[in-house]
């Protein structure tokens, strides 16, 4: 066995440039696989975390009849006396914060321009909403008792050319099915770096939103953040009641999860293309090696080396190439992924995608499982690619091989 490795290692050294180029092909492929996998995983992980932080929380408590798609404001569809429910939730040890939100569909207009938006009434003091306070880039955050101020996202401010202090008209549905409109003052402009969210969401204090929508002392939902995401299921099970529906982040981010699965399947095709190209390079290298060493194969065969062992010799060479290539690829891919995940990979604003909160930067992320499965895949593909040349060598007739020039 050691002789096999020694021979394979020295044989690779006979044409160093070719061996290095082949190992490099495997390295580049592994690097690409690692980086692509980490970008895709990072993208969806980021989108999911954005979804949880901004929109869904880990859990939501809603009235039993609330339908998210209808954004109903009818009282029977809302959580009554949200302060009381919130206090009960906050008393749970697993809960970091629980805060009521009132959500209404609206139209923001200024002059001839108008745009559909989601108006969210929030408690400006709640810890879960500090993410919006931190995102304020102009003006100031909302105060709980502000009756005229709104916080709008940067894309919306850009679209309407709004500055702090400008007044805009907001029209919303109310709890009794009518519509109401009012002029509001832009108090602040925020960004969460999630374009589709910032473009669509207008905040106002929940007390004002309740008054505006005729939904006093009601909330669309209680937004709950937990200390540990993994505790979602047990907490949801503990909260189960006939008066409320408890919805988890998995339910609320179903689209992200499905999209990730779709993207995963699409990536497999890309992986196979990359690995296919690599396999061709490896096959080519070893076929050339077999033809160059035909006479040596004849000699080894003449002194009693069986086809199986000749095949093993070439597979060992491929395994060494694969090892060098994969290790190089893991190091290079790991370094690139680590660097890009520290600075972020800028992507154009994902304006066309709704329901998935892609940020303006992707922070690649890779799991040990990804690394292991990609390493094994690259290794196995390299070995499969070397099967043909190895079999070619093993099947050579000694007489013909000995007479090769």
């Amino acid at each position: 066995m050691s002789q096999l490795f020694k021979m394979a290692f020295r044989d690779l050294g006979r044409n160093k440039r070719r061996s290095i180029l082949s190992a490099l092909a495997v390295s580049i492929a592994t690097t690409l696989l690692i980086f692509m996998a980490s970008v895709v995983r990072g993208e969806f992980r980021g989108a999911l975390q954005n979804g949880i932080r901004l929109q869904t929380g880990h859990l939501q408590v809603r009235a039993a009849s609330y339908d998210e798609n209808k954004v109903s404001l009818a009282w029977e569809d809302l959580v009554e006396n949200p302060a009381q429910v919130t206090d009960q939730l906050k008393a749970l040890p697993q809960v970091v914060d629980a805060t009521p939100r009132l959500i209404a569909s609206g139209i923001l207009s200024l002059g001839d321009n108008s745009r559909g938006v989601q108006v969210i009434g929030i408690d400006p003091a709640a810890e879960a909403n500090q993410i919006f306070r931190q995102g304020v880039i102009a003006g100031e955050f909302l105060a709980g008792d502000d009756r005229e101020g709104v916080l709008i996202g940067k894309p919306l401010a850009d679209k309407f050319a709004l500055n702090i202090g400008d007044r805009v008209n907001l029209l919303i549905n109310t709890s009794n099915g009518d519509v109401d409109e009012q002029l509001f003052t832009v108090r602040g402009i925020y960004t969460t770096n999630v374009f589709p969210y910032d473009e669509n969401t207008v905040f106002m204090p929940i007390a004002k939103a309740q008054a505006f929508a005729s939904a006093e002392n009601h909330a669309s939902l209680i937004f709950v953040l937990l200390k540990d995401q993994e505790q979602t299921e047990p907490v949801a099970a503990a909260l189960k009641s006939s008066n409320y529906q408890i919805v988890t982040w998995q339910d609320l981010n179903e689209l992200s999860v499905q999209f990730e699965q779709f993207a995963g399947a699409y990536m497999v095709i890309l992986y196979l293309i990359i690995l296919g190209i690599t396999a061709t390079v490896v096959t080519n290298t070893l076929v050339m090696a077999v033809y160059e060493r035909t006479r040596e194969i004849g000699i080894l065969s003449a002194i009693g080396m069986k086809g199986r062992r000749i095949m093993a010799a070439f597979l060992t060479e491929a395994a060494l190439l694969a090892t060098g290539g994969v290790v190089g690829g893991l190091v290079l891919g790991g370094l690139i992924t680590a660097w890009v995940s520290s600075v972020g990979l800028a992507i154009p604003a994902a304006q066309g995608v709704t329901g998935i909160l892609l940020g303006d930067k992707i922070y690649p992320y890779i799991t040990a499982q990804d690394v292991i499965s990609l390493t094994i895949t690259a290794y196995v593909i390299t070995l499969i690619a070397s099967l043909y040349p190895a079999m070619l060598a093993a099947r050579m007739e000694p007489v013909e091989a000995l007479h090769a020039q």
Partner: protein
Amino acid sequence: MEVTKVINATRDFKIGEMETHALRGVNLSIEDGEFTALVGPSGSGKTTLLQLIGLLDQPTSGQVYINGNDATRLNRNQRADLRKGTIGFIFQFFALIPTLTAYENVEMPLLLNGTKPAERKKRVNEVLEAVGLSDRAHHRPDQLSGGQQQRVAVARALAINPRVILADEPTANLDTENGKQVMDIMQRLNKETGVTFVFATHDPRVIDYANRVVTLQDGLITNDSKSNGKH
């Protein structure tokens, strides 16, 4: 005792539409301890006959016996097994593996037949000494002269203690002095160890060493004569 026996062997090659009859019914028996030369002009069938005896090729018809086994009934792997235990080869070109040292080249057939490490080491050193190359054991083929490389090939052929060593034009690529050295060594080994040698050649100086000369022409044995050999 008979080492190998060829009975009415023919070997045809077809290249495109043309068929060549390399051997046309050859009968030959080689006894233990012989130092036999197969001679004849190019294309007479020397190398083909040597390849049949060496189980590197199969006859189109007829039989080849090695150690009493009918080799024509054996499959590829069984022939390889029989080769690695019974037959040593020396080729016209210095058929060494260029990435292995002289020592490792000689060791290779011992590795293939499963000789234990300690025994292997002892045997490799013995045969390298026998061909006068102990001091070149760790040189690669490209660091050795043609004559030295062919002596390593002799040592490799000898390593497994074969019953017969087959040599195809062993001196063809050597100058007179190196050719003489290789033939002297082969003859000495034949006398000292009793190993049988069969070699194909058309070099008259080499033929002089043989104690049996088998002449081939157009795929047939035309003469088979015994002599005392040189020295």
